[in-house]
């Protein structure tokens, strides 16, 4: 990666009004660029809001749509990471995020893990993504995750193995209340998750969560950047729309990966062997007779 200044766009989208939200994206991009940012990161579903329910199919966009073209135009002079409902050619609706640069889509990520428990009901309305890939952004190899994706540790690990040095995580995470000494508890929970993920992957974690309120869900902001040592290098409070530009230094990443060569020592073969065994067990699939490679044969 190269040194890059990233803007955290902690916004409160208007629920279901894509046109108004697109205007706001444009305004925020202009401000971020004026403040010297090269990349602007928006929250999950930043183009439509979160509690969409039956509006999912009504707001969905496709490659080539007028809205899609406006998104591309947004990235003419600053890179943009933006969240939206993407309709696939087979009419599946995905909770997706796109990295746009120089007027075109560089990478599309479809959320892999759609939470469907507690206050969440995403998989009633949307389809899960099936692939996870890092991609070459202008400033370095990167990956995109959406909210719940980060709660499955394989996601960040696979992106790192695929070479990602910057992991963008877009979120719509609501508050679940407060506790003495902790403030808004979900902020601390995310901070822990982000710092651990950054340390394990020796990568930059760029986390942008929305604010605002929909049907009583109070989205808890707390956007932050964590460096590859797990240190917070910039953060925003749990409320209020705000914009923060944070420099990501390539030298810090190099130092962290020198001090902690975890990715050098990662063992995909081990993981693959054991996953294949677990997969056969889980789905009762035929396969080779179990052998313990450590036992060896004379």
């Amino acid at each position, binding site marked *: 990666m190269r040194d890059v200044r990233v803007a955290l766009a902690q916004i409160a989208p208007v629920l279901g009004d894509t046109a108004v939200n697109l205007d706001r994206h444009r305004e925020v991009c202009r401000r971020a660029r004026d403040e010297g940012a090269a990349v602007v990161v928006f929250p999950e579903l930043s183009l439509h809001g979160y509690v969409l329910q*039956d509006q999912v199919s009504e707001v969905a966009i496709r490659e080539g749509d007028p809205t899609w073209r406006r998104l591309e135009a947004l990235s003419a002079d600053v890179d943009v990471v933006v969240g939206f409902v993407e309709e696939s050619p087979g009419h599946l609706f995905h909770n997706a995020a796109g990295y746009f640069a120089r007027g075109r889509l560089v990478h599309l990520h479809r959320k892999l893990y759609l939470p469907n428990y507690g206050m969440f009901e995403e998989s009633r309305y949307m389809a899960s993504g099936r692939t996870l890939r890092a991609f070459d952004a202008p400033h370095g190899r990167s990956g995109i995750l959406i909210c719940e994706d980060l709660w499955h540790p394989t996601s960040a690990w696979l992106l790192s193995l695929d070479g990602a040095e910057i992991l963008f995580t877009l979120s719509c995470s609501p508050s679940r*209340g407060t*506790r003495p000494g902790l403030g808004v508890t979900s902020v601390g929970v995310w901070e822990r998750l982000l710092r651990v993920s950054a340390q394990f992957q020796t990568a930059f974690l760029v986390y942008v969560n929305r604010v605002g309120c929909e049907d009583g869900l109070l989205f808890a902001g707390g956007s932050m950047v964590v460096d590859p040592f797990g240190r917070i290098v910039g953060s925003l409070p749990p409320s209020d729309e705000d914009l923060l530009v944070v420099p990501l230094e390539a030298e810090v990443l190099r130092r962290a990966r020198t001090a902690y060569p975890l990715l050098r020592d990662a063992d995909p073969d081990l993981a693959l062997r054991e996953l294949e065994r677990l997969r056969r067990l889980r789905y009762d699939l035929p396969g080779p007779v179990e052998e313990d490679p450590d036992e060896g044969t004379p």
Partner: protein
Amino acid sequence: MSVEWSDDPAIEGELRIDERWTCRLLEDFIRIEVERTGKLEVVVGLSGGIDSAVSAFLAARALGGKHVLGLSLPYRTSDPDSLEHARLVARQCGIRHEVVDITPLVDAFVEGAVGLDPVRAGNVMARQRMIVLFDRSAAHDALVLGSTNKTELLLGYGTLHGDMASAINPIGDLYKTQVRALAAHMEVPAEVIAKPPSADLWPGQKDEDELGASYDLLDRVLALLVDARVSDDRAAASGIDLGLVRDVRRRIVRSQFKRKLPVIAKVSTRSVGWDFRYPRDWMS
């Protein structure tokens, strides 16, 4: 070891909150909900009790006192202290305050009603207050701000379409004991915090007599059953009477109708409530 992971359901029955941040979240909630509906202000029924005082204080902090109208709606048997306390609350948080005597409205109905017991009469009063509040909200282009707390909601301790009716409710996810903590934090007048909670629908009525247990105890049981989702036996293992635990669970189940819209028979392909699903804050 200190508690540091409060989303963890293993912290069973935890009721403590961070008052400053809770206020902040609830002020945001009120301001955003009022703005998105294009309204200018809220109307809140001021009973003189702690719940409506907390709602009024939050609204005053969120919108500024001049955008909040407190309405006291006494009946002739209401405790005179209630009105005094309501005035005190309105003064303290700097909101507008009006008094509308509901006696003629209630009595006009009561005269023609047969076999009215205190509970039915109480429901009539609560619904008459609702009529005045919603009418005023229409007159002022305002939203009705609710004051039903989580303890009341879960136990069904309130009048459906009466005091439970509102457009937005900032304290519906706070137990009574948590409302008290917020009240102290916002410096609600001490006499309002200290007095025994009462619906004041008839002389001498007290919440804790009717509910059969103190709010401290009820909230502990509710936090265990509802938030931590533990079994009755496990809840009782923390030293609470098993009979009370079971009674609370029964009350939660039996009052479910008060927390839902009317049941609609499904006879079409897309029905309100089942497969016509949009958020309340649709397109705003």
